[in-house]
């Protein structure tokens, strides 16, 4: 018996009987698709409402369609495979003159016909409605509803409708084949459904699991939502279609078809090998039980340890929740698989032990970085460009780090910094606790390679002092100055500019002043020469600038904004003479300048809330020198959660007089050890003179 006749033989008699006895499925399906898609269309009053429905449908975002694309395959698969789950029906059906292959094939075809008929009919009918509707122009500069109101008239193309149709057909076929596969390895209908759901979720779940573990345990790994979603979408058609709808790339369609063929082949094989006498058992194949139990146990362990770590702040995932979760979920799923409470035997114990060990190994492989992820750098020859914002190492707040370095010197410098941070590692935590304070830095780098992207994102205690040389190379390079230019940044359209300091918050500049100010600032920044001191001590004037601009998103959200805001802030350094002069001339500087009459300096030990040493400086000259020298660290917030969450090294508090002549605290700022040292040196020097 060759492959063709065995696996693809079709039985017209069986096909006919299937359609005869399950005719309610396509009938009901037709009804559902009608009410989900066509009915809202027909009754929609406003053209915008009608349009909304059409948009959703044409893009396969109609929730009704999505639900039915999942529900009907499940119902159909359950109906067609029920005969496998009772000894009576199994005996009769398999004594009839069919091969198992032809039964599986014929049932599959019957199911596809029953599910696809309503879909095809619905779409054929909708072809009559859709082209006569409105579609907003796809110009991203025009809002969604504005286009309708403006009366833009473009037809929805037949291509779009066909795309949506094809998506429906592919999605239903895939779920159907997936559930058919589940039927061949399970022994009753509840397990059939659970098995199918399990199979649908495995790819997604495991991706999520690996992502979470990597993020938690690998230094430098960060799930940025785009990357994660993209990976998921690439991996599984099941997530893709509901997310992307009819915007299916050809590669995705091909992948879906291949997945369907694979599911069918696997199902057919499992059916051929199935021991029919196990009808009624939960799982028909021993190895399926092993895999199922193992994965569920793994998930249970991770889940439990996540819950426990959230409750008592313990380490994720290595806490007692891991073992507790393992025992509970293993017991539960084993009982379900064997349909009996009596699971306590040697075999179970061995399986349990092996599973636990395997899971622990899996977790340890992340914890101890068996993959060498943390230390791995890309091949220099492969790198096209690198996205890196060196200013974040200096703790400047800046969203959208889009500085792209291409010069080989800069790239080398970046890689050196990468190496240093990776060496420093995540282990240098204060007191072994994960307290993020102002000594920690959030740094990310993204390498664009010929072969793809490699990105890292660290929260690290390695600061600028660890990689000064390389940092200076970058900061003083022409490439950086050009990329970092505020004028370039503001080009799309500057929204607002404000300046602030400890004494005065958010002084907004007049829009007419924008270009002047920007020119001055830009020139100053270009002229700036970074030194070792300037990157470790943060000399500043205590004055900061906040800029915001708007930028188009690049694609049209159906109901979202086509633009979004981005922000940038810069510290004004003592060397920015043009800017300072401008601020002076316009009268802003007066208000911004610190009028402090007293400074206290406190040194802390990381373990205590009490200061080890404290100094007070009231001498006017010394004060002015300090202010002029610009040793200002980071602002310590006085309100909010993070106000109490700190273990800074050194705190400098500025006191001054307010309008009523009373002494008030102007600002509290924290300094790094180097900054504190410089401050003390200065004080001592001044005191001496």
């Amino acid at each position, binding site marked *: *018996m060759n492959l063709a006749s*065995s696996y693809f033989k079709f*039985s*017209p*008699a*069986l096909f*006919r*009987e299937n359609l*005869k*006895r399950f005719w309610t499925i396509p009938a009901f399906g037709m009804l559902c698709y009608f009410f989900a898609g066509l009915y809202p269309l027909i009754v929609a009053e406003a053209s915008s409402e009608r349009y909304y429905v059409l948009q959703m449908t044409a893009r396969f975002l109609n929730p009704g369609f999505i639900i039915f694309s999942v529900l009907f395959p499940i119902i159909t698969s359950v109906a067609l495979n029920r*005969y496998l789950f*009772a*000894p*009576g*029906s*199994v*005996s*009769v*059906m*398999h*004594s*009839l*003159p*069919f*091969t*198992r292959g*032809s039964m599986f094939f014929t049932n599959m075809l019957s199911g596809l016909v029953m599910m696809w008929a309503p879909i095809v009919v619905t779409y054929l009918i909708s072809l009559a409605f859709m082209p006569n509707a409105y579609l907003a122009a796809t110009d991203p500069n025009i809002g969604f509803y504005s286009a309708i109101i403006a009366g833009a008239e473009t037809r929805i193309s037949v291509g779009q409708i066909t795309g949506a149709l094809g998506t429906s057909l592919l999605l239903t076929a895939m779920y159907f084949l997936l559930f058919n596969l589940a039927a061949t390895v399970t022994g009753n209908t509840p397990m059939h459904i659970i098995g199918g759901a399990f199979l649908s979720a495995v790819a997604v779940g495991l991706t999520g699991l690996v992502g979470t573990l990597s993020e938690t345990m690998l230094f430098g790994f960060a799930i940025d939502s785009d990357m994660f979603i993209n990976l998921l979408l690439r991996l599984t058609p099941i997530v893709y279609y509901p997310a992307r709808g009819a915007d299916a790339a050809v590669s995705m369609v091909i992948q879906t078809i291949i997945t369907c063929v694979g599911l069918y082949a696997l199902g057919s094989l499992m059916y051929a090998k199935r*021991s*029919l*006498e196990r009808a009624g058992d939960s799982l028909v194949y021993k190895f399926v039980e092993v895999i199922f139990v193992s994965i569920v146990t793994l998930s249970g362990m991770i889940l439990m340890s996540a819950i426990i770590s959230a409750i008592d702040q313990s380490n994720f995932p290595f806490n007692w929740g891991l073992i507790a979760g393992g025992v509970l979920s293993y017991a539960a799923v084993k009982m379900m698989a064997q349909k009996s409470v009596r699971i306590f035997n040697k075999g179970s114990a061995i399986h349990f032990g092996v599973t636990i060990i395997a899971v622990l190994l899996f977790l340890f492989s992340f914890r101890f970085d068996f993959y060498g992820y943390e230390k791995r750098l890309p091949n220099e020859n492969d790198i096209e460009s690198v996205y890196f914002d060196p200013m974040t190492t200096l703790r400047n707040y800046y969203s959208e780090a889009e500085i792209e370095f291409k010069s080989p010197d800069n790239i080398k410098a970046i890689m050196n910094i990468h190496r240093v941070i990776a060496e420093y590692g995540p282990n240098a935590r204060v007191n072994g606790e994960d307290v993020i304070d102002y000594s920690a830095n959030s740094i990310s780098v993204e390498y664009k390679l010929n072969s793809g992207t490699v990105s890292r994102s660290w929260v690290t205690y390695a600061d600028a002092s660890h990689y000064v040389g390389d940092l200076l190379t970058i900061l003083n390079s022409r490439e950086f100055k050009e990329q970092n230019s505020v004028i370039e940044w503001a080009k799309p359209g500057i929204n607002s500019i404000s300046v602030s300091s400890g004494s005065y918050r958010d002084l907004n500049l007049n829009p007419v002043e924008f270009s002047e100010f920007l020119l001055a600032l830009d020139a100053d920044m270009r002229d700036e020469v970074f030194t070792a001191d300037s990157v470790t001590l943060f000399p500043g004037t205590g004055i900061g600038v906040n800029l915001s601009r708007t930028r188009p998103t690049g694609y049209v959200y159906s109901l979202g904004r086509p633009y979004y805001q981005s922000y940038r802030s810069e510290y004004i350094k003592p060397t920015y003479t043009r800017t300072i002069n401008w601020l002076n001339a316009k009268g802003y500087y007066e208000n911004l300048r610190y009028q402090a009459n007293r400074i206290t300096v406190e040194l802390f030990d990381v373990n205590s809330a009490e200061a080890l040493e404290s100094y007070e400086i009231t001498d006017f000259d010394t004060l002015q020198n300090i202010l002029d020298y610009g040793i200002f660290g980071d602002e310590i917030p006085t309100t909010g959660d993070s106000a109490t969450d700190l273990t800074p090294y050194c705190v400098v508090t500025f006191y001054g007089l307010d309008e009523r002549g009373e002494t008030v605290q102007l600002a509290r700022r924290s300094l790094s050890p180097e900054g504190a040292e410089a401050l003390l040196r200065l004080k001592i020097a001044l005191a001496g003179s």
Partner: protein
Amino acid sequence: MIKVSALNKRFEHVTALDNLSINVKKGSIYGLIGVNGSGKTTALKAITGVLRPDSGEITMDDLDVYENVRVKQRIGFIPDDLFFFGSYNMKECAGFYSRIFPNWSKEKYRTMAEQFGLSERRKLIRFSKGMQKQAAFILTMSSNPDWLILDEPIDGLDPLVRKLVWKHIVADVAERQMTVLVSSHNLREMEGICDSIGIVNSGKMLLERDLDELRSDIHKVQVAFGNAGDKLNNEKLEGFEILHIEEHGSIQQMIVRGAKEQVETIVRSRNPLIFDLIPLSLEEVFIYELGGGNNELGKLLF
């Protein structure tokens, strides 16, 4: 004919079939007898190609059964656990069967449906169990199988229906040499209709014989000799096998296997003082054939 050789099947930790062999001659009505759980149903399911045995061979007219559509088109199987498509009535089932069994006869179906008096339009699941069995029987017989396999067929049928069922089976056997394999736990009911039987227990074939032979070959002999030296003992004499000897004083009571005339001739030639050839009931025959120690089994089968 149906030939099963060295069938083995294990479920988890239970051996259902243990080197089982069955031979059913063409045109024979063979009874597979055994208590519940002896492996009869498993054997029948293997024979009809439902289960795959761990090892062994199953052929009908030297053709493999498993996954063989041509052969399965000529097999008729009625299991103990009946199953019909959910909402179907007998007519709809007949329609389906007529399309998958090439030897289906519409006239035969009509005749039988009328004879049994079953409504063609009523949903089969609404029938009583007995009527469902009758419906299954009609459908199966109408497909004119060359091999008919029945699992506990007469369970739940009243005597009149039973007679009708056997009548049809016998007619087909006589006419077309249909081969019949029937399983039952009650030997008494089968012994009239079957010409051969096989007794299974714990998945093993204990005894497979032509029923007629079984009846004629075993006798109870009561014999006494004047001379103690003339006594018969456990020697196997030609055509005459002593299965069992009991002695009460000088009287020997024996169960022997052999042709009646031969036994008579041989014993008389020893000039016994007393010689009686006593008829044995079939039960007693079985008990001794099964090895004496299987008294329990014998009781169960009757």
